[in-house]
């Protein structure tokens, strides 16, 4: 009895939240054109969302690539196939690790900051204050941040993959003496521009959409107390991570499943 009640209550609450989140998303979409007319707002947000995540992404990408380079050589040399290292490094980065790992890092770095910022603005009545000045906070505060995430994450993912491929070159070719020519030419012959790279970019665009939506909504919907904000921030990181991994599975099945 009690269990059923809890279950019902939780379900209803989740549905209500999903409804609010959808309305929130819809209102962002309706004001998006406005953001293009105010590039200053957008630039400021690309700075705090994208530029401030730059070093984290660059360094992580380089290190992940270096590790794949090492592991790849150890594994491939068992089959005498070190020449395929380039394929292994590039395919795993461009298709999976680039979009997914940079999205996870982005959720932790930029997503949590967005939630906390919006939540704090709500707590300090800045959002209400704007409304009373007849300025729509969705238009002025939320939409530019949404669009900034949308632009930044795909670029960050590309940077991550590029640095990873260079990292693989450093460990595989420079350190463990895999032939540089086969590292690059095998890579080039195996990686398809549309199938691999464009699909990877589509993935990171979808991840950007998910993270920005979750982060902004959690901040906007947070209880206006310090405990409320801290819980909302945690939810942003956890829910984004789940959503990224789930959608990655789904997208991979759709994109690469047929071949």
């Amino acid at each position: 009895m009690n269990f059923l009640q809890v279950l019902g209550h939780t379900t209803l609450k989740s549905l209500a939240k999903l409804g609010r989140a959808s309305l929130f998303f819809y209102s962002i979409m309706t004001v998006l054109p406005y953001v293009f007319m105010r590039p200053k707002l957008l630039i400021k947000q690309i700075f705090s969302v994208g530029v401030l995540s730059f070093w984290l992404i660059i360094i992580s990408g380089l290190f992940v690539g270096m590790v794949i380079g090492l592991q790849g050589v150890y594994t491939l040399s068992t089959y005498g196939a070190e020449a395929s290292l380039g394929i292994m490094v590039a395919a795993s980065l461009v298709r999976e690790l680039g979009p997914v790992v940079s999205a996870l890092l982005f959720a932790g770095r930029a997503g949590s900051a967005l939630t906390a910022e919006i939540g704090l603005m709500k707590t300090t009545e800045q959002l209400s204050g704007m409304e009373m000045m007849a300025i729509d906070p969705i238009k002025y505060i939320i939409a530019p941040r949404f669009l900034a995430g949308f632009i930044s994450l795909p670029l960050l993912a590309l940077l991550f993959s590029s640095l990873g491929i260079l990292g693989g070159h450093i460990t595989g070719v420079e350190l463990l003496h895999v032939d540089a020519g086969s590292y690059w030419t095998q890579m080039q012959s195996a990686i398809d521009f549309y199938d691999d790279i464009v699909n990877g970019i589509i993935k990171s665009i979808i991840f950007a959409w998910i993270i920005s939506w979750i982060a902004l909504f959690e901040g906007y919907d947070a209880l206006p107390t310090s405990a409320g904000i801290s819980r909302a921030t945690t939810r942003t990181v956890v829910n984004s991570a789940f959503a990224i991994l789930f959608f990655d599975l789904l997208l991979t099945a759709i994109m690469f499943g047929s071949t």
Partner: protein
Amino acid sequence: MNTKFTEILVGLFVCTGIAALFFIALQVSNFQALQNRASYTITANFENISGLKDNALISMAGVPIGRVSQIQFNAEDYNAIVSMRIDQQYANLPTDTSASIYTAGLLGEKYIGLSAGGMEEFLIEGSVIELTQSSLVLEELISQFLFNSSDK
């Protein structure tokens, strides 16, 4: 934070991102090969192409000279028609060039290897390669081997 400084950094950020895209497109993938570089297309009929895919490499003496652009099935003679796009710079392939399907390594990708003949005339757009050698199918080889040995 100074607005101008912010704007410059954002500009740099977007530029590096786009540079990364170019790097990946040109240095990592076959994007260059997909570009409409001057090329001509020839075809070849194979009895069996098992495992050959679009975009597979075409090489001559180990040098990549083009890619498979299309694979079709010919309903008349039940053969596969493979269209090959060859770089224009390799326009001097003799008409009696032969094509074989090989595997890179034991388990690797299939590719087409061309070997030049001795004719004075060259293959041009739309030419058909007559001499072809199909892909080796491991199962057939094995059954042939078993069949032959039981014959004795």
